[in-house]
């Protein structure tokens, strides 16, 4: 399988918009052509060749090595293929991802997976605030697909989430699932203050006890069969997702946020 490898020479002084560098956009392009692609950095446009050593042959896989948190919008709008990133990345990772797979060995900044439509995003480190959330002015956050974060996530995970699945292996910050419209978020660690704040619909699945807003009503403990479908779906994706599969269907169900008539649910495994 042919792949092109971009190795960052040194961390740039100011952030660089890397959205032109996706497997589908580089398909069929020579190293020289890729080197000439201009990337926005502040008020300047830099040729990719000034930042990266470019090797390999373009195919359906793109590898970015030695990445750092100055590289924003990696995989934004990507439509197909596989993007492997070695190192950390900046903000807006996988924003508007249409299809394909992005894997990041390090951490990511804010607004990862915002506007994501489909595909898979896997971050092995931590992510910043607003994972899968709507950017200012947008009414909806992530629209579909699967996001797996092995580490911790910041505040406002899934703010305005419309569809899709977000799995956080570590802890999540404050206002997790705030203003959520639909979709599923699972957090294996702890969540911060006010999870589900202003939630309308959707599911927040927590592995352990949490301090919920008083505007969530306790609907009791139940065995919910859909969790088995959820577990089976995750098991069929890959090992990383499969590790989030709930082991049982018995959960305590809280519904809210009743402060705004919401019918979202926070399920706590018992």
């Amino acid at each position, binding site marked *: 399988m042919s792949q092109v490898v971009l190795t960052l020479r040194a961390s740039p002084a100011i952030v660089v918009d890397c959205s032109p560098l996706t497997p589908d956009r580089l398909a069929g392009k020579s190293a020289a052509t890729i080197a000439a692609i201009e990337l926005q950095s502040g008020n300047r446009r830099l040729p990719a060749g000034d930042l990266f050593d470019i090797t390999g042959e373009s195919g359906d896989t793109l590898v970015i090595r030695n990445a750092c948190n100055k590289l924003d919008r990696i995989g934004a709008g990507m439509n197909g293929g596989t993007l492997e990133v070695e190192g950390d990345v900046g903000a807006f990772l996988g924003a508007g991802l249409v299809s394909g797979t992005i894997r990041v060995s390090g951490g990511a900044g804010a607004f990862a997976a915002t506007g994501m439509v489909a595909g898979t995003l896997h971050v092995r480190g931590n992510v910043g605030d607003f994972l899968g959330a709507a950017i200012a002015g947008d009414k909806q956050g992530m629209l*579909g697909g699967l996001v797996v974060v092995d580490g911790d996530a910041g505040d406002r995970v899934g703010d305005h989430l419309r*569809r*899709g*699945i977000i799995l956080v292996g570590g802890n999540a910050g404050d206002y997790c699932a705030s203003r959520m419209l*639909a979709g*599923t978020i699972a957090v294996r660690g702890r969540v911060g203050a006010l999870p589900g704040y202003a939630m309308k*619909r959707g*599911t927040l699945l927590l592995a352990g006890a949490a301090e919920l807003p008083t505007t969530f009503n306790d609907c009791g403990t*139940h*065995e*919910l*069969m*859909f969790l*088995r*479908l*959820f577990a*089976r*779906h995750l098991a*069929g*994706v890959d090992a990383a997702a499969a590790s989030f599969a709930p082991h049982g269907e018995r959960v305590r169900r809280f519904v809210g946020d009743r402060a705004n008539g919401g*019918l979202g*649910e926070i399920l706590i495994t018992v």
Partner: protein
Amino acid sequence: MIINGVTIDETFAEAFGMRATRLIITAANLRWANHAANAATGFATSVIGCGAEAGIERELSPDETPDGRPGVSVLLFAVSGKELAKQVERRVGQCVLTSPTSAVFSGCDGEEKIALGKNLRYFGDGYQISKLFGSRRYWRVPVMDGEFICEETTGVVKAVGGGNFLVLAASQMQALLACEAAVEAMRKLPGVVMPFPGGVVRSGSKVGSKYKALSASTNDAFCPTLRGIGNSELSPETGAVLEIVIDGITEADIRQAMRVGMQAVCAIGAAGGIQRITAGNYGGKLGKYHFHLREILA
């Protein structure tokens, strides 16, 4: 052609193109999955009067179902995708949604989709919840024993309805025992259902009637009590005739089911009072599919 003393007529069964879907009905145990499936496939012997022909294809072990519970696979057939959609909605709504612990999933991936839980979800009165896992959307509808889970749509495939053969025997019980053996063997095959009660029909019909309001009426040529009048097809030794009707996903499924069924009848043979096997057709002008008995058994 004579097999074990049974004459196989030089004729064919005439079958028609239909639309079909497969549903997987699960429940807490097989008993309740069967309750739901039996109700959903009840009153589904003929599209003429029931709107659909349906039956249980087979029972499923927990590792064969989407939710890991015991289940039953059912096949439903109708004359068009539109009619099938209507029947599926009614039958699942009245017979599966209502059955304790049940859930229902699509069991086939046709290009054409019809609603399964898509409209039934409104029973949830706004409390229903959608879950999209991969490309499959499920609905969680709150009900009094928990949640009814149903997949949003099911696939529709082109299918074949009306495969058949008639068993002519010396007595009613001999014909019945032979048909029971045939149905038992045929039920082990995938992709087919025998929609009549117990898989067997005693009221074979012909096209037309002396009464203008009726489009079909009793098949007098095969009625033993009319042997002495009209154009009887029966010899003086024939005491009863029973028919097995088969609907299948493919032509090959029906062919195989007819083969297995007729072989089971022939295994009983003349010693068991079986005299002849024939088939129902309309002269070959109406149905797209012709199943020649001798070819199938060759």
